[in-house]
């Protein structure tokens, strides 16, 4: 089973499209006299032995249309806020971006703060500590990367995906149709039932409850506590109240 997640990347002009290409297509090796970037990419990754598909859409060039950025945030499960460590102004803009993202997104959206171009140590204008402090203050994950040397690029995206994955496992994440769809798909996937070690009638009742929960994006509290299910794991933790 594969799953789709949409992660959007914001803040323009800081080399994020290169970052994205580095992550989605390894064949484009970074070369000193060539800058290539991309605004859309998809890639399969593996977390906890599960195949997960990441779709990444870039908001670049569409900032003038409020409706577009708004919709992007809303559809995304995670976002990467990228600034350029050699340009102080990109760092200063983060607050505005973050506010925007928070306002328009689901409150559970995972946001990662990325200081890009860490290879240009000599021209650094924003200290690593400042980035860390900003991230701590606003509850973000922080990392410094370099699209040129490919350092930390993989980690940045995968850590974000991991965080999303964890949130889904906890059951707090339930933002969009994609998630719900996959959840439904899993609930109806009968193969996993046999491995729970539950009686057939019990399975039936759980399955009904889960289906009910899968129908609405935000299941009522008793259902959440009732069926803490691990979407990707084969084990269901079934807690009765």
């Amino acid at each position, binding site marked *: 089973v594969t799953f789709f997640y949409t992660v959007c990347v914001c803040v323009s002009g800081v080399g994020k499209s290169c970052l994205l290409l580095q992550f989605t297509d390894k*064949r*484009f090796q970074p*070369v000193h006299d060539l800058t290539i970037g991309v605004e859309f990419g998809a890639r399969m990754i593996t977390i906890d032995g599960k195949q997960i598909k990441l779709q990444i859409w870039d908001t670049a060039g569409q900032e003038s249309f*409020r409706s577009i950025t*708004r*919709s992007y945030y809303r*559809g995304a499960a995670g976002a990467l806020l990228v600034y350029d460590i050699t340009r102080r102004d990109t760092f200063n803009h983060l607050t505005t971006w973050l506010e925007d993202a928070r306002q328009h997104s689901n409150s559970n959206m995972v946001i990662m703060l990325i200081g890009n171009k860490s290879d240009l140590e000599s021209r650094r204008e924003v200290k690593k500590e400042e980035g860390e402090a900003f991230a701590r203050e606003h509850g973000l994950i922080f990392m410094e990367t370099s699209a040129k040397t490919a350092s930390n690029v993989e980690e940045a995206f995968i850590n974000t995906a991991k965080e999303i994955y964890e949130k889904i496992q906890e059951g707090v994440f339930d933002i969009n*149709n994609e998630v719900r769809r996959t959840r439904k798909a899993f609930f109806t996937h009968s193969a996993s039932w046999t491995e729970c070690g539950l009686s057939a009638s019990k399975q039936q009742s759980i399955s009904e409850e889960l289906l009910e929960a899968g129908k609405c994006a935000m299941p009522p509290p008793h259902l959440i506590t009732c069926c803490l299910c691990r979407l990707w794991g084969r084990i269901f933790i079934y807690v009765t109240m």
Partner: protein
Amino acid sequence: MFGRSRSWVGGQGKTKNIHSLDHLKYLYHVLTKNTTVTDHNRNLLVETIRSITENLIWGDQNDSSVFDFFLEKNMFAFFLNILRQKSGRYVCVQLLQTLNILFENISHETSLYYLLSNNHVNSIIVHKFDFSDEEIMAYYISFLKTLSLKLNNHTVHFFYNEHTNDFALYTEAIKFFNHPESMVRIAVRTITLNVYKVDNQHMLHYIRDKTAVPYFSNLVWFIGSHVIELDKCVQTDEEHKNRGKLSDLVAEHLDHLHYLNDILIINCEFLNDVLTDHLLNRLFLPLYVYSLVNRKINPQVSLYLLSQVFLIIHYQPLVNALADVILNGDLSKFTRSSASVGGVRRFTKPPESLERSLEMSRHRGRKRTQKRPNYKNLGEDEDDERAGGGGGGGEREKGKGTEGGGGGGSSKGSRASGETAEEIEMVVMEKCKVSELTEQNITDEEKTAAATRTHAQRSRPFLDMVYSALDCTSDDYHALFVLCLLYAVSHSKGQPYLRLQLPVPDQERSSYSLVLVERLIRVMSQAAQPDGKVRLATLELSCLLLKQSVLSGSHCIIKDVHLACLEVHSTQTRGEEIFLDMFEDEYRSMTSKPLNVEYLMMDASILLPPTGTPLTGIDFVKRLPCGDVEKTRRAIRVFFMLRSLSLQLQGEPETQLPLTRPEDLIKTDDVLDLNNSDLIACMVVSKDGGQAQRFLAVDVYQMSLVEPETKRLGWGVVKFAGLLQDMQVSGVEDDSRALNIVIHKPSSNPHAKPLPILQANFIFADHIRCIIAKQRLAKGRIQARRMKMQRIAALLDLPVQPSATEVLGFGQTASASPGGLPFRFYEQSRRAPNDPTANRSVFASVDKVPGFAVAHCVSQHSPSPLSSPSPPSSGSGSTGRCDSVTASTISAQSPTVSSSPAGSVHPPALAPSLTPASQPTISLLTDNSADTLSVESLTLLPPADPPHLHPCASHIVRACVCDVNESKRLLEASQHLCLHMKKDSFYSQKMGWKPVKLGARSTFGFFCTQVCPVVCMRVFFFCFVF
């Protein structure tokens, strides 16, 4: 596999540099050798295409000859050739991806023109990919998006062909406008916006004439279907189970509105006409507005959606027309559906799909380009097998007759088509064509019709409905939406005048404004009820509206509104500790997050009936309180809001709130006179290991760490200052000389963890110093909290004129801060930088708690100028003030109150927290209703001198906020008080209390105490000037 192909390519050894013209030539060679795609060469081809892309981008950035070669050999044709061979998903995705990368990274105009010439790109756009494949779909649409970002006045000619009337990029994209995948829909919207943005008249004419009507009518239908689904979701909701789905649908609707607004902002005039026409006549009026009186969808849903419309869309003609119908429209022509004047507005499904419409318009060439776009003109000649088509015929004839009418067809026609289930029909009096609406609100027929009627008879069903929904005696479900709508209409940028002052004849305007204001006040008074069903958001919004309509109006309708309410619940589990934190926290969160109506209207949860339980996860301001704690929180908030409203309406500044003002606090690097004050030397070991020798001083609200000032003896420089109330002190296990002290910063950001501003071990000289310090800190903390509680109590008096505040029983501070209690201990003038000559001792020796610094007793020497008969109590507390704070009880007070002569009451030696004002001139009211008074509800008219009322209120309220231990005695006291007041009804006459006239309006006050038999007390004070 890529690795393998790479090595294969590299292994040829033809080029050392993979980025060069030579390498491109080699890649070309590979392409010519592999013209047909097979399983064997597939990877090689993909890698070759990728390498070509890389080379082209490199060439674009470094070497122009690369592009010449690419063009010369027409290499793009190879791409197309590969694509057409049904080479399968893998190759398709790779090809689309590389094309994407290619177009995105080309920076030179000329290079771009090279790539776009020959029409190859258009061939790729119209290629029938397998769109059921999610990945191909995603790559394809982002390819189109990338292309659309490259559109400008020059490049548009490569995409739009004037002669063949072809604009594949646009028409192919909009076919996916209702794709199930949200990211695809977003991309489609981006593409359309990028297209509309290009200022090319020919292209825009094509868009309008050939695509605008089909696209917009389908879009409007798509939006409308979502709305109906949304409504269904609200209707069928039980126990808030549909909330998740609902918030999705609401967000979807918002997305649409933002998108529409973005189109309208581009301000392409003739596109806007078509769009406005469709929106108004096929969606907003028939579905939203009409539902206000004839529930097609729930009125609350339509109010909610309309508010969103006004908040988001700012296009003047559209907004004005819509507001006009809501505020002035009537249903007079409701029955005359066949009348020629009243347009028939229907929300109905377009008879054909968008794709089909586009097909038709393409085939029919330029025959109709001169004509005004009309939906009915499309697909006229086609042989129509579709269900909807048959019925459409009749409509078309009609549509041609009323050219540009933009209305839907007759209902009869479509009903025959069997789509009745999907259509929502409405007939509403209408102002006819949209174009007319902009300049002239009423058609000739309307004018004559209006002339025959008198204004008084003119009914405005929509407006009436809106006003009647403001009533919130049972709940404020509808009222919140109405307030939002009114707010949105009045704030809509499209309005040249304030819409709330209705555009009707004069006498009606004032009366309608009055109606609104009266209703707003009613909402507020309902909110002030202890068990009112008004949510905080509703209250805040009505305050906003009231301010707006009264303050900005040319003549003030109300001069004065004083509303105060407080309801305090004391339970056994909760003492003043929590109350203070709550009080300050509420103020912080209220001022840091002022209500944003737009954000409020983004929340789907308010669409469901108001609920009280926090288990739903609904924000506190958007639901009713649950439990005593939340009821208290709500009461505090209500108090803040009404207080600020009252002050603002009177044009007075806030002087008492917030309780802690940063400018009043001791700051780091302040220089203080510490002569005679108690200082304890200690070693401060911070968490990260830093050590420093400091002196610890405890102030009224703060503790500070100072180090000696070098220039002046006995002065100190503050190195750290923290609020005592946020401090935690604990001993250190293995060291009796040490204390662990943590001070948290009051958090304003909900996402951040509470950050300790100080986290350190204090090591003292010996364990005795340590114990002294600990006691001092702990006492200081209690004292600081008490001081604040007193200030809250003082606040709850809510002086009608804060400037005339009585002494309030805090004699020691009266002259230091006339407004009430001190914000800080150190007077500004004593701060070294301001007045270095000031050398009076700050830590005066009057305090009786050893080593404990308390406020300097100033008023002992200077009688309060405001209290005419100087209260005997002012001096009495001076000696044992600190001790009495803790030891004080109200019990001493009750006999005093009940037995005191009618002249004045002097409660002696009361703790500041409990001391009533100097003169609790409580009196009963001589209103006609005096006989009916009971203990539970006493009606008082405020005296001629309004402040005199407040001591009474403060007395009760103060009683409430004090410790739980004392509440029983309090209860007795207040009962006594009430009885006393009741008995001595003559007393009030003596004191000269009487109803007061303020201008032409009568003033009345309302005072009510509710004494529950339990320890729970509700005190409710409410003063109202009408």
